């Protein structure tokens, strides 16, 4: 059963199309990672799914309803981002108490366990927390609420590497015990990809890729050899990225199935075949210039 489905989803902010003709579906009880460069439309998409924004055109369905003004969606959803505001007179422990009466699946034991583990001060106030501590607290709220639809928009901003690692582990373990629909956006794909089931890669408000996270790792390979050999091999293939190495060598990224088709010629020529990291691949897939930042410096 699909929990979220979008068809031709478009959202304009004046003349800018933040989301542009997006169509995809998300099946039940999956952890989906929303990946894409700044300005790709990640936050806009998440806010539309949460029901905070009305679409300009196209259709979005969450739990089989239009999420905008939907009581069903709002009562089954939590949206965590760094702009979360709580009543300023409440202490952290009072916020958790209020959350426990608000969210019907709230797990106070988990909330308190995480709260103590991360050494938060119950008497502290939310707006006085450091950025990393605030993200940590928001994450605790997001996990303990156990909402059927849990949305994290850049939940790890400001967290140090250790806390981020703990967060991914906590998210996974809680998900294993209480499977639910989780979407979260992140710029740190290499850290989260193993925990994700699916990856949705956005670029300029459009879908670039939507596939199981485990398929992304082998999606592309890099070939490295003399430029003439490489350009001969990759003629007619879709090239995701290329750069020159040394005097007369090239490094070119192509689809793995394209490389598999050329396997005989590649091994006959002794061309080096190298793996491509998934976060590098996502950058290659979403940049306009095939040579990346080097194009700025290597203009002649």
């Amino acid at each position, binding site marked *: 059963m699909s929990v979220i489905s979008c068809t031709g989803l478009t959202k304009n902010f004046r003349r800018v199309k933040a989301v542009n003709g997006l169509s995809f579906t998300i099946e039940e009880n*999956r952890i989906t990672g929303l990946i894409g460069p700044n300005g790709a439309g990640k936050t806009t998409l998440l806010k539309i799914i949460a029901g905070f924004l009305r679409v300009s055109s196209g259709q979005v369905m969450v739990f089989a309803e239009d999420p905008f003004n939907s009581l069903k969606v709002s009562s089954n959803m939590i949206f965590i981002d760094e702009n979360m505001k709580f009543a300023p007179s409440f202490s952290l422990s009072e916020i958790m108490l209020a959350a426990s009466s608000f969210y019907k699946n709230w797990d106070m034991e988990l909330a308190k366990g995480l709260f103590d583990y991360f050494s938060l001060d119950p008497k502290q106030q939310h707006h006085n927390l450091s950025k990393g501590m605030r993200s940590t607290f928001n994450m605790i709220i997001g996990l303990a609420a156990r909402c059927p639809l849990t949305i994290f928009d850049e939940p790890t901003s400001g967290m140090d590497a250790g806390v981020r690692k703990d967060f991914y582990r906590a998210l996974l*373990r809680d998900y*294993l015990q209480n499977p639910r629909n989780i979407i979260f956006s992140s710029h740190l794909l290499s850290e989260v990809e*193993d*925990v994700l*089931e699916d990856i949705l890669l956005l670029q300029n408000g459009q879908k670039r890729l939507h596939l199981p996270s485990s398929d992304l790792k082998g999606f592309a390979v890099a070939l490295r050899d003399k430029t003439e050999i490489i350009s001969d091999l990759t003629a007619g293939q879709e090239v995701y990225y290329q750069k020159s190495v040394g005097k007369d060598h090239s490094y070119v990224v192509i689809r793995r199935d394209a490389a598999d088709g050329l396997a005989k010629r590649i091994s006959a020529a002794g061309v080096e075949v190298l793996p491509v990291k998934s976060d590098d691949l996502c950058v290659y897939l979403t940049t306009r210039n095939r040579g990346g930042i080097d194009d700025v410096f290597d203009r002649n």
Partner: protein
Amino acid sequence: MVGDKPIYVQIAEWLENEILCGNIKENEKIYSQYQLAEMFNINPATAAKGINILADQGILYKKRGLGMFLSAKAKEKIQYQRKNHTLKKLVEEVVSEAQRLGVCEDELMGMLRDARKELDEHEGEGG
């Protein structure tokens, strides 16, 4: 190379190694996708993919509602597979690298024998 393989392939190989060294016996229940997910900090769907690789090869069989179990002769199957695919491929790589470097057959065989001797000595020390 290990880190470059997709996680589900790594999971399948890890299970194979557990079977090869006798940690899982024939007709014994193997780890569930959820146990593997927790052990390796990966999504359970990815863990299931790893299990399915072995199920497709007949190394595991399914008991409805109970989980996956180790088939009879699973160990032999894995040994056969590894020898005829993994090891063969590795040997091919070694031979082609030797050719590129102009290493003759005798020299290559000598290197293989030396490597084996070294490994045996290490094992002797260890035991």
